[in-house]
């Protein structure tokens, strides 16, 4: 290999996290459907080793797959099928909107989001899966690397895209989804890395709510088409509970630039925030649960290792820790496999 992916990702992946990934694998609870062989359980019979089923011989079947013992029992020619093992297509849709810039240093939301996406991509590339990604920010999308591809160059491209992007404006989710959805391979793993706080900002609250509902429906549509959809929701603790207190005068600016500035006393502004946020959060959680979407909330100040291990566990089929997920606490530490 020309370039060591570990070093290429050093900018966005902390070495500690890389150490953690060593010897771990990205596995999915559900079978995949890849173009080529891989190490994921495929949704169709293939050239694996595990017995899958017997079926009646039809002309054209490879006679080497005839199961003689089954023929003896059934008194007709039977074909022995084995589980297929396919490669996985991981498609990451990364939010580079202004809201992801919130937080200082290690607690920046984008930093946590990029690290987690890069870690997943790193795992996938390392185990031979293909990775595609698209980003949206400043009102535009970048879908150049949407088609999944394997190998270190793709990882480097991802690292480049996430290393120091200009985090500003809004992420046009509908456009991003519209670009990505037709080009997704079958049964892809779609990772949506965003805070999902205000994905479709609009000056008019009703229009924003309607657009968001449509977006949620789109996520559900992806899931309905057989993709695994993971909403990797990265939140800053301040967004869970704003820290402003007392009579301080604040001007709240929408980082996406769509909503009007808000001025007021800290205490007055804060009033009702948690309730509204919680209602929104629960609605999203219900929607995801109802449509089989993985919703993983990650606190940007939580240890990334915990978040990553929790993510891997959820993908490999661990049950969602209902309360914790809703509370946004760090995911429980679980072995990936």
């Amino acid at each position: 290999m020309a370039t060591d992916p570990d070093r290429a990702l050093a900018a966005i992946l902390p070495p500690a996290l890389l150490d953690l990934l060593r010897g771990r694998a990205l596995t999915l609870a559900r079978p995949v459907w890849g173009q080529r062989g891989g190490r994921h359980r495929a949704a169709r019979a293939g050239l694996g080793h595990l017995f899958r089923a017997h079926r009646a011989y039809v002309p054209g079947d490879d006679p080497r797959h005839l199961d003689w013992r089954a023929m003896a029992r059934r008194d007709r020619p039977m074909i022995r099928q084995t589980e297929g093992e396919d490669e996985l297509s991981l498609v990451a849709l990364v939010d580079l909107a202004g809201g992801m810039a919130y937080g200082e240093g290690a607690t920046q939301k984008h930093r946590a989001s990029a690290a987690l996406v890069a870690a997943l991509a790193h795992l996938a590339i390392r185990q031979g899966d293909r990775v595609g990604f698209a980003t949206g920010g400043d009102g535009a999308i970048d879908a150049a690397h949407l088609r999944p591809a394997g190998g270190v160059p793709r990882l480097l491209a991802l690292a480049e895209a996430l290393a120091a992007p200009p985090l500003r404006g809004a992420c046009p989710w509908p456009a991003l989804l519209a670009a990505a959805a037709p080009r997704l391979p079958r049964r892809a793993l779609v990772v949506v890395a965003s805070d999902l706080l205000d994905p479709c900002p609009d000056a008019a609250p009703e229009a924003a709510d309607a657009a968001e509902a449509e977006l949620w429906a789109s996520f559900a549509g992806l899931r309905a088409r057989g993709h695994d959809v993971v909403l990797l929701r990265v939140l800053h603790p301040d967004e869970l509970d704003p820290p402003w207190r007392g009579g301080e005068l604040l001007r709240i600016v929408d980082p996406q630039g769509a909503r009007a500035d808000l001025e007021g006393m800290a205490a007055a502004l804060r009033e009702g925030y948690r309730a509204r946020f919680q209602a929104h959060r629960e609605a999203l959680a219900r929607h995801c649960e109802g449509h089989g979407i993985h919703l993983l909330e990650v606190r940007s100040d939580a240890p990334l290792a915990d978040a990553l291990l929790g993510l891997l566990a959820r993908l490999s089929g661990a049950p969602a820790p209902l309360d914790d997920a809703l509370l946004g606490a760090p995911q429980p530490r679980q072995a990936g496999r």
Partner: protein
Amino acid sequence: MSLLAPLLLVGLIGLGLPLLAHLRGREEPRTIAFAGRRFLAARGEVLSQRRRLRDRLLLALRLLLLALVVVALSRPVTRHDAALAVLGEPHDAILLVDGSRSMGLRGDDGPLFAATAPAAEAIAAALPAGSRLGLLSSDPALAPVEPSADPQAALRALEERLEAGGPRPGSWRLSDRLPAAATLGDRDRGRPRVVYAIGDRTAGGLASLPPSADDVAVIPVAVDGPLDAPADDPPTHLGIAAATWEPAPEIDPRALRIRAELRAYGPADPERRRRALVALRIGGETITQAEVEVPAGGAAPLELTYTAAGERGPLPATLELVEAAGAPADALPSDDRRHLWLAADARLRVTLVNGDPSEVRAHDELFFLATALAERGAGERERLALRNLAPDQLEGAVREAGAAALADVDVLVLANAAAPAEDVAAVLRERVEAGMGLWLTVGERVDADAYNERLGELLPLLLREPVLAGTAPGRSEAAGEGFAPANLDHPALRGQSSDLGLLGARARRIFLLEPDPSRAPEIALTYSSGAPTLLTRDYGRGRVALLTTSIDRDWSDLPLRPGFVPLATRTIAFLGDRAGEIGARDLSVGQPWTSRLPEALTVVTPSGRRVALAADDDGVRRFTDTFEPGHYRVERGDPSDGEASGAAPLLFTVNVDPSESETLPRPIAPPTLAGDRVLAAASVPRWRPLVGLAALALLLESLLRLRRRRRALAASRP
């Protein structure tokens, strides 16, 4: 505690400004780009204006800081009794020492002038570094010491002067020497000059001083206690305020009556009376003694009679307070003596020429003048030898005997007389030039042209014409001209009280005069319009006076006024005094004695010193060293000829000025300085700790702000 600049306290109003700014000021909100913006809702009205005080501690500190600065700027001080008022910056300090006689007042701590040296030393010690010290006394006998960096020079000079004895009588006023103090030595204009006047609080002492003069600050330093405290009552002392004599022919042809006024100076207390024993000494021999009780703060008259038994000529007499046995010594002994030349036969010969006689006495031109001169008192009348003449009698006598006819006339009064004939006028001119006094009063018979032609050379100003006085011609009740206050600086009226008693007088007709500055008339009395009423002029050795209204009631009611008597007698005495030959003159110490006599004059002082007087360019011989009270003789003729002229010596006495005996303190304003200057020591400055407190408040404010900023930073950091 008081404030040097209390007006600056207005600055405290400024305290409201930060408060107002704090409350009214728009707070700059902290801007946060927050992704959860959509979950935030504006609740109600957003008020960016503070509705209540925030950061109370910080605000209080800042207000305190401002208040401290304002209060410090207004410079609070506390008065310090013990300390002296000294300018708090390097300057030229001039010690102006009161040399008036009242400084000799003895208190419990000795005479007042002894306290001068400690006061001067205290000032010298309190002067800021770099100051220079000079010395000056209101008595010119103390040679001025120019300001020098060595304060000992001035202090030594003062010490030597004090060791030489008490204050010299001389009627010194501190204010008279203030201009000299302002210009003493080389004056550096950039350097402040402060005159420290050390003296008592009498009229001639500190009370005579203006607050400042000629950009020189004056700081009074009272030797009788701090200025801001009411002075203790000075000890009562006795003095002889005045002494006169007159012949007493009803007792004996050679008897003299001596009147004196004794005063007990000090706080008035009619209940308390001091016994005074007064002795009359003639030629050192005690003739008689009299006892008088003087109320404290009041006066008592004394009358003695003496008969000059065999003596001829004037006698040197002294009235002296004698210490009664057991009585305390007088606190101010310098005024316990009064000197007189007693002469039983001195007369002023006055000839009155009546131009308008009348059989009705009240209509007679000279009725009022003669009465006034006669009413002077029995003794005074004896000293005036009055003779009445009609104008034709005068002319006849003059034509008969020439100048000899007027040889025995000291003062000639021409009252409303027609202008004398040319030959008589020439004799008059000759006599006046030789020393006779001439008083012209006008009336209907006075013709301006004739007077100007024949006596114009003598007249103080040429006559123009008689006019009706007043501003409303034709309105008789409004016609009339009032009199302005008399010019008491005129030698004839010097020493009179401020109101001569003429203020109500009105003149209906007055004589206008031709202005002529070259004649240099001296104006004693004017009308309220400014036109001269009574004016005098020196002519040769004699004097001429001119009254521009009638001396009877025809033209004015002047003779009806009480002031007419002193005016008439003073004028007569002034005109007659010019001859310098009759009677003895009484001078105050320091008052010069002058004479126009042509022969050589030698003054013999009381201590026996002989001083030959030289005539100046105008022929005036002047004796100025009259600082020694006592009897002076002026011998006529050149003693080197071995043969005196034989003429009787001229006599005069010098007595202390009774006004200097007044020791009651006057209120003195505490020293004030213009501008930013501060008085050190007198008032202890209290603003320096305030400045320190302000600095501390500033430090606390900075610390608090720093802490707040850190806290704010920590709060904004997620």
